[in-house]
């Protein structure tokens, strides 16, 4: 079986333009996340979209699907202008989006989800449900993507189905709208190889039928297999527009990371320092087995693509996610946390990814936010005095240079960088041995980033071991002594700072994922 390739659409220079984008741009705060002077998408093509995290892929996708309100510029689908910021307008013009989180109603049946918000086409009833027509149409929609009743019974409650089945339903839903422009956002990330191959085939098929598919993917091999044309985004700009033939994996990685390399003194880990954290064969849901050693005073970065297990590793070490196997040692003593409480007890401080959701009580004063981890320590015989609380809060906030009027002001009134510094202060206050960071500078402006890097350096200088997961390679190259690259829940490479480059990290993070795709698709497409 080979991948269907329509000769009419591959390589012909003059094709009908399906989507025309002119001057489309979008700005969040000071950052221009998308800036496309000119982009045409042709009918009959699968267009791969690649780029680093934050390159603007999701913004481009959201702009086309109407879920992101573009700041300016014109978009035409089949010659008809697309109103900005309306998912309905986009749907009416034939844009369908399959996102990574599936908006399905778990309590309803598969058939009801497939026809959510509309009546079966065959049904004459206006008010009453028509189960037979609904069922028939649902079966037909699933059949369109080659899913049989036996695989996914349309009467089943969606909640009782496994994740891959839900992903297929979501894809079927999008196909059911007979889209002109289908946007697939990492559609295969939650699928096994067989289902992934099926989805790629469907993308191909839709293009052969004259539609356009925008395929956003992290696995470069997969994108290369399915796409006729690959566009590379970097910092919101279109930096490369390549034919399939030109788009070698090396080229793509080079375009994605750009020419510039982060300049910093390559830090060398102090080999003399004792190993603080030892991880052996650690497994958890979606993680492992992982082996890793981190020395006191060392900053170990964790790189990897989305879903590679970066956060999971951090969380498992912190005790926030249960380990299913393997061992950990902290300063030579066995460490097997049954919750974050155990982690904190053992001297581990975690600074999670989402400041607002996971770290702060935004409307509470700064002093309360920074002292929450040491309340017992600053209480005398279990009673917390107001003055002590204020003093400690002041001390902690000042130790990390939080710029504020008063410790009584709500922490939500501070800037992102100041909030993040306050969180560092809180973590330092409990004198941890190991500092775990998940995206330490997310949502922080450039100036404040440097200050946070200083804090991380300070932690290491004081002898803490630091394990920092980040999606920003420059950041890791800037702060780390060593970088562990993760892929599919495993550490695939540990690079010394001196040998680490963006290209090497990207290759390790993306390159090896390649082999997971097997089956007939590979044969047809690579040829």
């Amino acid at each position: 079986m080979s991948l269907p390739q329509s000769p009419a659409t591959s390589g012909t220079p003059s094709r009908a333009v399906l989507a025309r984008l002119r001057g489309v741009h979008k700005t969040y705060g000071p950052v221009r996340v998308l800036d496309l002077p000119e982009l045409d998408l042709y009918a009959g093509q699968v267009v791969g979209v690649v780029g680093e995290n934050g390159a603007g892929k999701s913004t481009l996708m959201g702009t086309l699907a109407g879920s992101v309100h573009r700041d300016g510029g014109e978009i035409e689908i089949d010659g008809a202008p697309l109103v900005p910021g309306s998912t309905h307008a986009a749907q009416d013009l034939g844009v369908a989006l399959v996102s990574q989180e599936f908006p399905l109603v778990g309590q309803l049946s598969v058939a009801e989800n497939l026809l959510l918000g509309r009546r079966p086409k065959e049904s004459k009833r206006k008010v009453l449900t028509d189960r037979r027509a609904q069922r028939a149409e649902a079966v037909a929609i699933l059949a369109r993507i080659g899913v049989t009743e036996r695989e996914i019974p349309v009467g089943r409650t969606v909640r009782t189905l496994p994740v891959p089945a839900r992903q297929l339903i979501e894809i079927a839903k999008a196909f059911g709208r007979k889209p002109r422009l289908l946007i697939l956002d990492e559609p295969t990330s939650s699928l096994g190889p067989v289902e992934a191959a099926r989805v790629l085939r469907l993308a191909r098929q839709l293009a052969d039928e004259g539609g356009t598919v925008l395929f956003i993917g992290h696995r470069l091999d997969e994108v290369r297999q399915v796409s006729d044309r690959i566009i590379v985004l970097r910092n919101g700009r279109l930096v490369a527009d390549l034919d399939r033939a030109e788009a070698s994996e090396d080229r793509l990685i080079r375009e994605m990371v750009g020419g510039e390399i982060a300049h910093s003194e390559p830090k060398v880990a102090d080999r003399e320092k004792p190993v603080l954290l030892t991880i052996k064969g650690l497994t958890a849901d979606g993680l492992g087995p992982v082996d890793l050693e981190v020395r006191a005073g060392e900053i170990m970065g964790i790189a990897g693509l989305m879903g590679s297990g970066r956060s999971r590793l951090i969380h498992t070490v912190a005790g926030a996610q249960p380990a299913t196997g393997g061992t950990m040692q902290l300063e030579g003593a066995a460490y097997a946390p049954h919750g974050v409480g155990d982690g904190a007890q053992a001297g581990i401080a975690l600074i999670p990814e989402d400041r607002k959701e996971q770290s702060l009580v935004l409307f509470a004063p700064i002093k309360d936010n920074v002292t929450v981890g040491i309340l017992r320590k600053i209480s005398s015989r279990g009673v917390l005095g107001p003055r002590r609380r204020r003093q400690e809060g002041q001390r902690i906030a000042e130790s990390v240079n939080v710029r504020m009027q008063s410790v009584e002001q709500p922490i939500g009134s501070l800037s992102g960088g100041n909030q993040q510094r306050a969180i560092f202060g809180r973590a330092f206050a409990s004198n941890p041995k190991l500092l775990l960071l998940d995206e330490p500078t997310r949502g922080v402006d450039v100036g404040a980033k440097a200050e946070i890097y200083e804090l991380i350096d300070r932690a290491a200088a004081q002898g803490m071991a630091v394990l920092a997961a980040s999606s920003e390679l420059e950041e890791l190259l800037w702060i780390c002594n060593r970088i562990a690259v993760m892929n599919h829940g495993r550490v695939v490479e540990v690079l010394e700072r001196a040998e680490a480059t963006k290209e090497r990290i990207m290759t390790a993070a993306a390159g090896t994922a390649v082999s997971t795709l097997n089956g007939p698709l590979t044969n047809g497409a690579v040829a």
Partner: protein
Amino acid sequence: MSTQTTLPPAGAQGTAQPAQRSGLTRLLIETPETGVIAACVVFFILISFKAPTFHSVGNLQVVGRDLGQTGILAIGESLVILTGGIDLSVGALAGLAGILAAWFNVSGHMPAPLAILLTIVICGIAGLWHGLMVTRLNVPPFVITLVTYTVTIGAALAITSGTPISGTDPLFQNLSAFYVGQIPVPALIFVGAVIITWFLLERTYVGRQIYAVGGNKEAARLAAIPIKRRITSVYVASAALAGVVGVLTVGRESGTADPSVGGSGWELIAIAAAVVGGVSLFGGEGRIIGIAAGAILLEIIHNGLLSMHVNQYDIQMVQGAVLGVAILLDRLRARYFGRGERG
């Protein structure tokens, strides 16, 4: 090239695994209401043995009339809970409705049918107010219905100066004290409400969309379901049903409207019946059969304990315990079948 031939045969992937479970397990997964219904039967038999008067026709008629109150409230309440909201005002609103209907009839000299209609419309407007506040201004349902709760209890007392209104039209009594065959009218109204609600929820698009709104608001929004209208409508339904209940209470008290009715905590019984019947407080989950069974179970226990001469205070504790056990069993079931997490 047809779709079928281009795609690899699937099957071994096991997308539909859980279907292979045994019949009983599947029944329990797919019909969580089985437990409540079984409990109704068990309690009915047990209490019948302990208290011979319990299953007498006269007592069962009392049970039926009670269902015409808490049961109907439970249905309206459940509709609101299905969308992920809560309506704390139903008990108080029912109380005020009784007063209003009697007051319009007695002091306002309105004919009884008009008084009743006007009362239900006024309650519906209160529901509309709840719905608009919740959907337009994003006021938490808990808060806005608590406001109404407080105001309506006050209003009922203010209208009556605390003394019951008597001398209403005989129609009020006929509604509650009349029988069709041996069945009291309020019980029939309850059954009617159950059937209409079943039809609405299971057989109309509006009903299915109510589940979608409660189950996954984002999915509903993307599917262009009119979320605000659906949510508003359940608050209107809940409040209007409270109005119906209020009218029925007047008849039960021999045509007297008692301002103390509103404060008797019926909204809590209604919420309890919904939860016992398998309605999830997170929204999107629960069926009318469970809601009805939940209301019936609570009523059987309440009335049964009365027949066994258990005092009122102890009964309240038992009712609380039943709610506790129901929640516990529901969570255990959810965990056992691996759907502890929501959605």
